[in-house]
């Protein structure tokens, strides 16, 4: 069987608290081992004076849902989209991720009715391991469970839904926004009850957090707060965070060795403070370790696709007379989405503030394990911007240089220029590798170079010990830009410029650990609901994806 040894590399493995040790990594049958079962047929890579790190993990992306196809359709008439995003084809996405050292992606927003499309796309997405989160915040079948606390009923149904669709967890996003059939009138207060429902959005956030912990899923509830990039978002976010905090929940996975300690994951946290003042959020996170967030870096690309369910954002984009058109879809009473294109401009003050927010959070939240680096691909940035983002985090000089090209008004008002804090390389590895793995609950196998973890790693052609990461930014950037080796489960996926996309990746899924004796009764009730109000039977959600693609994770 296949054996690979990576010799004498300078290893960074934050999960095992290894910071720059010279060490051999042994991989046999895709897993990291302490010693090989026998000494024949060992492939060797000499990593002397090179840096060995786990493969990166993207905790928030939109790459394989139906909405991504609408983006591709919209982009097919824009030359800059085709050139810069290469039509956003699945193969291109996979190659772009691999060349930046990624081997695991989370598709963060899939409607249960469309999950089969995502599964089908996943099987076409080579090499990468992947998982999807189901968006259940608008599902009518859970109407009663959102009104009253019904842990058994909700968890039974949600668990079965994951089993049927092979999802990994849940996303909450604009609860019951679909009640507003028109585009204009929007709810201002999250505590207001819905027009047609006897509960408010805040109930959904609260109940889903509880149900998620009752289910014992690897990942916590994955939350997007409505009104992002708008002034409403800050209030909404505060309200939700304090509400969840008042529940006094603890993570159902905290008994594990490499645990996820959070009960609540906030997606692209950079987009909620439009005024650029993150101090409240930073204080909250420093005080409350049971919350985590991803940073949502913006990259100022020539053109950005945008998938959102946020009407406010879309309305503001339309109002600004965008030359880009919107494809609006309403999916089976599970929610509305909008797909369009947009451009972030370095001379636009708001865009600059959003960009600065990510850095502000990353530099001021004390616990690195509370944060993950994400770019909300493809909404905020192209994955190729990761090396540049790394330099911004590691070096205040790089930051200052970047600021020179931004909106003058913004530079004058923003505090970022005075912040000289710099992250270490070790911190960067936590943000991109270890922390996402931990937050997703897959830290035992991913983002980890310890025994029994998957043999997923990157070899950078750079000796981290010999350089000053805050000064030699070009070296850091180059080593991340052209990663020498990307290895997945012991196979060399990328060496220098050649990328091998033949192996299949696995789809991670989980249905939690919740068991209930009256499961049949509850499921029959739900099936009746589907029978009465949905265009398909509940059982038709069942996906028959081949076992060779699946990997169950609990």
């Amino acid at each position: 069987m296949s054996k690979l040894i990576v010799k004498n590399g300078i290893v960074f493995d934050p999960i095992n608290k290894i910071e720059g040790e010279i060490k051999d990594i042994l991989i046999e049958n895709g897993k990291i081992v302490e010693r090989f079962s026998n000494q024949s047929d060992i492939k060797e890579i000499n990593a002397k004076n090179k840096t060995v790190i786990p493969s990166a993990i993207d905790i928030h992306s939109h790459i394989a849902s139906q909405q991504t196809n609408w983006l591709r359709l919209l982009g097919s008439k824009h030359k800059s989209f085709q050139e810069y995003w290469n039509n956003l084809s699945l193969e291109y996405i996979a190659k772009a991720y691999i060349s930046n050292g990624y081997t695991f992606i989370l598709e963060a927003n899939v409607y249960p009715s469309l999950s089969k499309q995502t599964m089908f796309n996943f099987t076409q997405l080579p090499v990468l391991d992947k998982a999807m989160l189901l968006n259940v915040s608008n599902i009518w079948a859970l109407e009663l469970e959102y009104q009253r606390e019904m842990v058994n009923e909700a968890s039974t149904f949600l668990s079965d839904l994951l089993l049927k669709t092979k999802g990994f967890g849940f996303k909450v996003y604009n609860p019951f926004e679909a009640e507003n059939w028109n585009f204009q009138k929007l709810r201002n207060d999250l505590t207001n009850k819905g027009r047609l429902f006897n509960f408010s959005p805040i109930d959904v956030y609260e109940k889903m957090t509880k149900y998620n912990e009752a289910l014992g899923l690897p990942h916590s509830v994955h939350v997007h707060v409505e009104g992002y990039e708008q002034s409403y978002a800050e209030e909404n976010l505060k309200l939700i965070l304090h509400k969840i905090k008042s529940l006094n929940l603890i993570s159902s996975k905290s008994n594990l060795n490499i645990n996820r300690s959070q009960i609540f994951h906030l997606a692209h946290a950079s987009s909620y403070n439009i005024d650029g003042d993150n101090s409240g959020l930073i204080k909250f996170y420093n005080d409350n370790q049971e919350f985590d967030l991803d940073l949502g870096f913006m990259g100022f690309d020539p053109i950005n696709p945008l998938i959102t369910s946020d009407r406010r954002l879309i309305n503001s984009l339309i109002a600004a007379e965008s030359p880009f058109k919107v494809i609006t879809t309403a999916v089976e009473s599970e929610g509305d989405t909008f797909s369009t294109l947009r451009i972030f401009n370095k001379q636009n003050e708001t865009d600059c503030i959003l960009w600065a927010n990510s850095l502000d959070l990353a530099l001021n939240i004390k616990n690195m394990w509370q944060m993950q680096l994400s770019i909300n691909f493809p909404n905020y940035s192209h994955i190729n911007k990761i090396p540049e983002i790394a330099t911004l985090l590691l070096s205040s000089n790089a930051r200052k240089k970047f600021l020179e090209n931004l909106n003058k008004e913004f530079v004058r008002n923003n505090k970022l220029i005075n912040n000289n804090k710099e992250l270490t390389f070790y911190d960067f590895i936590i943000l991109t590798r270890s922390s996402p793995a931990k937050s997703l609950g897959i830290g035992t196998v991913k983002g980890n170079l310890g025994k029994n973890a998957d043999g997923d790693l990157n070899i950078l052609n750079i000796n981290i010990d010999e350089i000053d990461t805050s000064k030699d930014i070009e070296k850091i950037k180059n080593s991340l830009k052209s990663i020498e080796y990307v290895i997945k489960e012991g196979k060399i996926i990328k060496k220098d410029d050649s990328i091998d996309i033949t192996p299949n990746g696995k789809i991670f899924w989980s249905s939690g650990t919740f068991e209930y004796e009256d499961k049949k009764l509850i499921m029959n009730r739900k099936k009746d609901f589907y029978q009465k109000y949905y265009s398909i039977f509940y059982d038709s959600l069942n996906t028959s994806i081949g076992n060779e693609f699946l990997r169950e994770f609990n």
Partner: protein
Amino acid sequence: MELYKYLPKTNCKLCGKTCMAFALDLLQGKVKADDCPPLLEPKYKKQYETLKELLGSEEGVEKELRINVDTDLCDGCGICVTICPVNARYCPPSLSGKAPDYPPEKHQLFQVKGGKCELLELKYCRRIEAEGRERECRVCETYCPREAVKIEYV
């Protein structure tokens, strides 16, 4: 106002009201066709019979309800299955336009089999079991796109 067509339209007021008002009451089951004296005259015989047929056999058992489905015309769209109020009450799937389960419910009137509509149990039809206005139900006939369903009294 199909019923009005078949009244004598003389406005003789022998029944105490205009023909139009009489037709409305007739529709609501407040009066019977026999309450119109001119209608019983021989020259209105044909109209009287049509009217009786339209109203159903509430006054006697001399005529039997039939729902004929022309299988040559029917394309099995299942609109009759969905629209039939009796089906809707007993087969939850038909609420969302789905085909009912098989075997059919006891009260189910229609099912689609082999691409054609099939009449199952006529005795639960509203024209037989319901009261008042509901007895006038003829939705299956009204909405059939292929005009394949016919309600008749023979």
